[in-house]
């Protein structure tokens, strides 16, 4: 009888621990990739190349970007980290609303913020709708409200 009770208690404890772990752990997803952007809007041309790192939790994305941007042949450097908080806007359409952005610029970062915003890495992103999608549970797609612009795969 005592053994049965002990066994039952162990089972319950394991179940409780498993439940607590499953429901309390943050679902962190991170990946890194090389990126290249070409944007031609009428006569305004932007090219960007570099490396991008994503770390995505339930309500936060950390983006680390390091690269070169050319705007109408004027080249500048981008090197910054963004901590973006977001909330679901239309989860079925993979759309999320940015609630706050914290930007940390490296000393070498000299890109114009208006250009950076166009590439989703500038100030003034608060309130914007972004595209965010996890695919196959190992690929993340990130972009503006109309289209995914960046992607990387978890190692």
């Amino acid at each position: 009888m005592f053994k049965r009770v002990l066994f039952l208690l162990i089972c319950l404890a394991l179940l409780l621990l498993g439940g607590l772990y499953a429901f309390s752990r943050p679902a962190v997803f991170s990946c890194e990739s090389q990126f290249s952007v070409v944007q031609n809007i009428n006569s305004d041309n932007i090219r960007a190349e570099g490396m991008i790192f994503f770390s995505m939790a339930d309500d936060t994305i950390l983006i680390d970007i390091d690269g070169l941007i050319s705007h109408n042949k004027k080249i500048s450097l981008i090197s910054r980290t963004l901590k973006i908080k977001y909330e679901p806007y239309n989860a079925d359409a993979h759309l999320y609303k940015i609630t706050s952005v914290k930007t940390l610029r490296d000393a070498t970062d000299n890109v114009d913020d208006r250009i950076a915003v166009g590439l989703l890495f500038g100030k003034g992103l608060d309130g914007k709708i972004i595209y965010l999608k996890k695919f196959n549970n190992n690929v993340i797609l990130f972009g503006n409200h109309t289209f995914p612009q960046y992607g990387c795969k978890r190692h």
Partner: protein
Amino acid sequence: MRFDIEGFITFDTEDASLLNLLTGDCVELSQTSTRLLAELLSHRGDILSRNEIFHSVFDKYGARASNSNLNQYISTLRRNLSELGVEKEIITTVPRIGFKIADDAIIHNDREYRTPFLEEKTPEPARGPSRGPLFQRMARIITLGFAFTLLLIQPNAFKPDADIHKMVKDQCTIFMSPALSLLDVKKSFDFSPQPLDCSQPKELYVYKKQVKGTLGNIMQLLLIECNKGSCVSFYYREKNNV
């Protein structure tokens, strides 16, 4: 429950009867007599006081308990056993205390008694039953482990991606919007600095949206090429007024 008395009398508490296995004679007992004999046989070796019997045989079942009543039932049981051929006094009186089953009485119940012919015919039990609890325990642990694993897996990991179409070309596995064809994928690489190359195993993710309207052209394209875990993404956007 069944009791075997002296090897030839069977007392069945369910049937409330005493049966002589040798002659086939049977005596039916009253409910109170059955409870009384069952109580005495269950506690054989112990002396049951009158008060204990009053409580467990009479009071508990709403019957009237009294010394004369009890004596009457004991007397009836002794007579029944005697009529069935039991010469020994099975129920003995312990003066000023109560009653007990005689020490020299041969009593077995159905948990410990097996008739010899049954023992001969019944094969030796397999070792399975002794392992039963172990198997049950293992099954419980496996079930628990499975439930634990299910808890660790997030449900969204199984959410199907209905808006993605999968295609294989040579060594490329291509994931793309359902509206796109392989030709569209090939054409998309015209915008990319790298041509489509499927000579090595790789994964491609292709998203493309294009509108050619009277006011102008709008196009967005995302190509992600993943090779051995490292990915390169290429995004192209074009918006031109006519």
